């Protein structure tokens, strides 16, 4: 297997899907092809795209790795941040504390999976309950208004750099570059791939399999937290239920981006390209006034459809190259 496990035909496929999706929406609403709309797509895509970066690492680490709690982490992060800001904590400190809390939430997932050895689905389902509940407890179940906060803070989600959204240029792209380097240019990345491909071999080769996978959950918690902070700054509100469908959407993006669901393959670069496709689909649907329930439903169809198409192709390739 290629060391990066990256399928080279995938970018073409994703570009074709993006163009098709855009063309489809443009038939109904030609004005969707405007700068302002592309801008809105980017703003939406950045938040879920960050979460998908972390989710890529978790899934590629194998052993049915999955993080269902990402949305709950994003919501809880918003509430923690909101409470701190309302307690008159300076915003840089509040953001720093929230990031620390996010690392902690990711670490709880990591410990539940690697130390308590709970199956990732159950462990992150339990923390989904726990984190979403805590977000409701801390917020009293209501949204926290942040529109009166420092404009520097709000710029995290509303600012512009070089005429483009701040969070795209200053947060998402650097984060993507870091994750791509981590995955393809460091020993950690190679070790995580090996763990995902064959954890027994990895352990026999002296790798600390638990720590490698644990680190992926911690990083995933971090990306979900950053996404939560950016979302709160963008809307000027901290919402306890901010990340409701984030687990479904981030997993769909990762799978669409070519990361194998059985671990050991894939790349955050594919994830980034798939984010563009999902952002177009999601924005296009809401632009055409579809209820958010339809967005989740369509993404569910995409998730299942991609795997249904992909499995026979993979089986065919495996036969051909035997």
């Amino acid at each position: 297997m290629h060391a990066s496990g990256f399928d080279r035909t995938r970018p073409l496929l994703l570009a074709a899907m993006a163009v098709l999706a855009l063309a489809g929406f443009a038939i109904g609403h030609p004005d969707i092809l405007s700068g302002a709309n592309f801008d809105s797509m980017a703003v939406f895509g950045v938040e879920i795209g960050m979460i998908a970066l972390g989710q890529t690492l978790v899934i590629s680490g194998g052993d049915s790795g999955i993080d269902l709690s990402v949305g709950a982490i994003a919501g809880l992060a918003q509430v923690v941040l909101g409470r701190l800001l309302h307690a008159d904590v300076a915003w840089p400190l509040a953001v720093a504390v929230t990031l620390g809390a996010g690392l902690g939430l990711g670490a709880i997932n990591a410990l539940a999976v690697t130390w308590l050895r709970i199956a990732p689905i159950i462990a992150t389902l339990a923390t989904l309950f726990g984190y979403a509940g805590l977000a409701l407890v801390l917020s009293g179940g209501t949204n926290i208004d942040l529109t009166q906060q420092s404009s520097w803070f709000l710029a995290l989600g509303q600012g512009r750099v070089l005429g483009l959204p701040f969070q795209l240029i200053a947060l998402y792209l650097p984060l993507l570059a870091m994750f791509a380097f981590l995955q393809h240019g460091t020993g950690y990345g190679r070790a995580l791939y090996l763990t995902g491909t064959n954890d027994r071999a990895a352990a026999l080769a002296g790798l600390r399999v638990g720590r490698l996978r644990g680190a992926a959950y911690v990083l995933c918690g971090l990306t979900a937290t950053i996404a939560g902070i950016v979302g709160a700054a963008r809307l000027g509100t901290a919402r306890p239920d901010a990340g409701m469908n984030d687990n479904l959407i981030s997993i769909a993006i990762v799978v669409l981006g070519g990361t194998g669901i059985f671990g050991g393959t894939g790349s955050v670069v594919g994830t980034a390209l798939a984010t563009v496709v999902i952002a177009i689909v999601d924005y296009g649907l809401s632009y055409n006034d579809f209820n958010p329930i339809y967005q989740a439903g369509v993404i569910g169809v995409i998730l299942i459809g991609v795997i249904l198409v992909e499995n026979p192709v993979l089986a065919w390739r495996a036969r051909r190259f035997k």
Partner: protein
Amino acid sequence: MSAAVMGAPKVPRLRLPQGREALLLITLAVLVAGIGMFSHGAFWSRINLDNLFVSSAITLIPAIGMTVVILTGGIDVSTGSMLGLTAAIGGSCFAAGWSLAATVPVFLLAGAGLGLVNAVLIIKGKIPPVIATLGTLSIYRMIVFIVLGSNWITQIPPVLTRVFVVDHVLWLPVVALIALGFVIVASLYLRYFRWGRHVYALGNNEEAARLAGIRPERIKLAAYVMLGLLTGFAALLTLGQSPMVQTSTGSGFVLQVIAAVVLGGTSLSGGRGTMAGTLLGTLVVQVVDDGIVLLHIQPFWNGVALGVIILAAIGLSSRRDAGGM
């Protein structure tokens, strides 16, 4: 041949859940004693106990199916959407003036059909169960929205509530007796019938089970369809409990069901778990839920409590018997 395969995993399988069941019984006793005391007797009121039994029964019935699905090494996270969609389809029949006798099969068939969709995606499509059912979770919910629009269905025949919830036999609401009956049948079936034994064999080691002549695909198919069927029945009971269908009906339900099953000691790596455990797990989940209401604790703590209980219960046992990596 079959006996030789079943012989090996039998001893550890029977010993561990007994420890779990004892632990759950103690937990339940402590919870009930505590809530009974601090609620100043409100817990022991007839009306509260009835509510508790009805809610437990509605969770328990799909939990029986979920236990079998998890025993085979799978999972279904779409159960809540499935319940919502079945309720929407059946409710639409009620709204169109269908009789109860004509509509009950609709509930059961709709549930079984949705379970079949999950089964086909997982078995034929070779999609990991959590991903396939995460997809159908959102797809089924979308169809609920398509079926209902922004309307509510309230034309539910009152006889449902009377028969299943209000009427008592042997001091228990009828639904609770039905659920108990299902648990006993499922428990005996898993323990003494060939297919039941095959479920454990499959969960323990799919490859070995296949070599022993068991057909994993058939058992998995039956498990997901059975879960769908039971969920369809639970949808009918839900309408007896609160006679209304809305787009959010059943959301959050699956978390309770899965919590009950895994709390009851059924292991997600497959092959280990009992119906008695699921029964006790369901009671713990529902008593916690009830206690939070009775003790006037913010309902938001419910999720936190469940999350912590699951992590603690499974974490302790899986660390104890974790082998290998």
